[in-house]
């Protein structure tokens, strides 16, 4: 034991000194090109200042442009760049359609499973006749479907679509990504069946049995190929911030997923540490990078302005890597594991404030100057709200890791509400917005029914408020009741009933919104519905605002 620690200390020292040397070398050789020029990588020549929403038609886009502040019409060189980009967008059509369409299916299934699980909490006699309908099977099925089906598949789909945009080259090896989607879907289908049939590995976030894990690893490896192949052929020198997140997620997810699923690595409490290290990092180092990669691309592109402070995004990225990776054991505060390890996780949870504030400044300040566009652009409104939820849920998470707060919130529904603020408020809203941007550029047609977009937005917005606020309050009261020795345990159960009922109402509204969204998206993907001459925005952009609008 002593020799092991000595070895690790020595290794840490050598690695740190090596890292420092590397950093000095990188600075001397100008490896971090961080100036405002780098932030413009995602814009074509002369494109800064131009909005990139809606996709079509020209007239509305021009009005949107006026709303922002008019610029000169593109010259021939710029026009050529735009045509090249449209072609590159098209190169992703088949694989991205596969990943996104699949994610829509899992979104619907996951939502229905979530509502069933939620109702069961206040109607315990509902659907109890069969084992596969019991709460303890529906709940993990919900989690795995929304995590690995909806969020991961939609996130990967958006990531694949971003590849040509980030590297300025047509997607290379798109067929691998399509094959990956098919295998990933098979894995999920088998996995959901396994969970409902009772073949769970028994650990939260790691319930899928090993054959499913293998399918997901193969599917994931296949979809990684186009990223690497396109990277090798890239026409840009500087890698834009979205690309850093995608590249890091590419290596983090397999490391986490394979390590955590290795059979018989640990038993007992050691396993619980591995379990929660994985469960928190799959959010922080897989979902979060996918969501941030999308937000970092769409926000500046739609408002037509480079990211507020590009150097800050460097801090945001590396601080996320350093601090998030050590988080997770705070899920075991008060549990039977070494206190020093829990303390490391708490410290790093609080340190997460640094990357979160860095990202928040970048996202929110970029939008602030052009906030009027939020009135019109569905993508911008969803993504910006998602970015706000990221800030809120991250700060909340840092607070929750503190022992004083955690003592109350641990083991309660408060934690469940927090998890949904992150994975739904942040991740899902960003994905919704991204899909609204991507689909017209795959099909060459606008969304057929703008009213459905508005319905989707308000249903999930109001639904999520009804979900999150009561559940947080109920969970907090539940925690206080559990800590009070003078109140019987049953009081902590019965006092949550109205809050759990409200959660079901909110969840149902959200599910309704998802149904509208999924139907609309399928219609758009098969080029159904009317061919619109105007753009699918939340409201029409007024024709004459030239001179007074924008900056």
């Amino acid at each position, binding site marked *: 034991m002593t020799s092991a620690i000595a070895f690790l200390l020595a290794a840490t020292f050598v690695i740190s000194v090596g890292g420092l040397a590397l950093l000095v070398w990188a600075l001397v050789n100008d490896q971090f090109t961080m100036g405002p020029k780098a932030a413009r990588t995602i814009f074509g020549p002369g494109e800064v200042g131009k909005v990139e929403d809606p996709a079509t038609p020209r007239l509305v886009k021009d009005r949107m442009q006026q709303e922002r502040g008019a610029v000169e019409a593109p010259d021939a060189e710029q026009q050529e760049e735009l045509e090249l980009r449209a072609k590159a967008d098209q190169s992703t059509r088949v694989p991205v359609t596969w990943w996104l369409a699949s994610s829509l299916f899992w979104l619907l299934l996951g939502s229905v499973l979530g509502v069933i699980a939620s109702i069961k909490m206040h109607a*315990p006699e509902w659907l109890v006749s069969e084992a596969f309908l019991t709460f303890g099977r529906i709940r993990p099925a919900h989690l795995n479907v929304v995590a690995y089906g909806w969020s991961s598949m939609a996130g990967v789909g958006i990531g694949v679509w971003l590849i040509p945009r980030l590297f300025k080259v047509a997607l290379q090896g798109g067929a691998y990504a399509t094959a990956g989607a098919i295998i990933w879907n098979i894995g999920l289908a088998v996995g959901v069946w396994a969970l409902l049939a009772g073949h769970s590995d028994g650990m939260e976030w790691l319930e899928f049995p090993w054959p499913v894990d293998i399918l997901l690893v193969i599917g994931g490896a296949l979809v990684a190929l186009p990223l690497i192949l396109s990277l090798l052929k890239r026409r840009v020198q500087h890698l834009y911030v979205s690309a850093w997140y995608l590249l890091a997620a590419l290596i983090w997810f397999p490391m*986490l997923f394979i390590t955590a699923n290795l059979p018989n690595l640990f038993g007992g409490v050691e396993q619980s540490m591995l379990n929660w290290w994985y469960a928190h990092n799959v959010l922080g180092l897989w979902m979060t990078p996918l969501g941030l990669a999308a937000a970092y691309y769409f926000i500046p592109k739609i408002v037509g302005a480079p990211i507020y402070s590009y150097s800050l995004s460097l801090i945001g990225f590396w601080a996320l890597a350093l601090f998030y990776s050590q988080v997770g054991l705070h899920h075991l505060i008060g549990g039977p594991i070494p206190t020093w390890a829990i303390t*490391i996780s708490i410290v790093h949870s609080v340190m997460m404030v640094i990357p979160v504030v860095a990202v928040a400044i970048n996202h929110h300040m970029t939008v602030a100057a052009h906030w009027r566009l939020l009135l019109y652009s569905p993508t911008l409104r969803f993504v910006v709200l998602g970015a706000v939820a990221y800030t809120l849920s991250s700060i909340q998470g840092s607070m929750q890791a503190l022992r004083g707060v955690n003592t109350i919130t641990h083991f309660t529904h408060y934690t469940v509400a927090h998890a949904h603020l992150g994975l739904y408020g942040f991740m899902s809203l960003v994905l919704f917005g991204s899909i609204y941007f991507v689909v017209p550029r795959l099909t060459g047609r606008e969304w057929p029914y703008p009213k459905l977009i508005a319905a989707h937005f308000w249903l999930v917005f109001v639904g999520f408020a009804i979900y999150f606020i009561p559940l947080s309050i109920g969970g907090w009261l539940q925690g206080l009741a559990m800590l009070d*020795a003078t109140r019987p345990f049953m009081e902590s159960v019965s006092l949550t009933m109205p809050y759990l009922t409200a959660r079901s109402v909110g969840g149902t509204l959200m599910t309704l919104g998802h149904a509208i969204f999924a139907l609309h998206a399928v219609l758009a993907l098969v080029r159904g519905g009317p061919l619109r001459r105007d753009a699918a925005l939340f409201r029409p952009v007024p024709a004459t605002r030239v001179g007074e609008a924008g900056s």
Partner: protein
Amino acid sequence: MTRALAIIAAAAMILLFAALMIVVMPAIQLQATVKAPEGLEPYSEQAARGRDVYISLGCVYCHSQQPRDPSIGPDAQRGWGRASVPADYVYDSPHLLGSMRTGPDLFNIGVRQPSQDWHLTHLYNSRSVSPMSIMPSYPFLFEVKPEAEDGDVVVSLPPDYAVDGVLVAKQDALDLVQYLLELDRSYPVDVIPMAEEE
């Protein structure tokens, strides 16, 4: 940044370092120091099968198995047992520490409720013994027969929940209850004494 390989390699190194810090190091420490306590027996064969039923039905999503120190919460006063230590878990794989207390902690349920009969009734319909409970009913772990046969374990039910005939526990229910009855960590363990607060 211009070098993709550098980003990937650095990202991987950071995660590797984190894994060493908060997973491997504590695991090395635990494996070097933790031994099975004298009072702890491995699960019986039936209880091990029951543990699989516990996992398969997802009991862990509402019940923790980690009573905490009195300085954190009144777990001991609720009868959930002394604070657990790593040695209590040497026979647990997968671990079932849990993250929710929608229901009470079960690490010492065998001490608190040592009656097989009570557990069976509670599993069939928890509200028959605990009116405010929101635990699901598990009717599929039981079957209704006109009359009991040899070797059948008949479940006793309050009048409001009576069935037409007798209610007999299936093997899964018996195994699960055996597991719950063996959840007993009332033996003494060595713990590091807590520091006195100033």
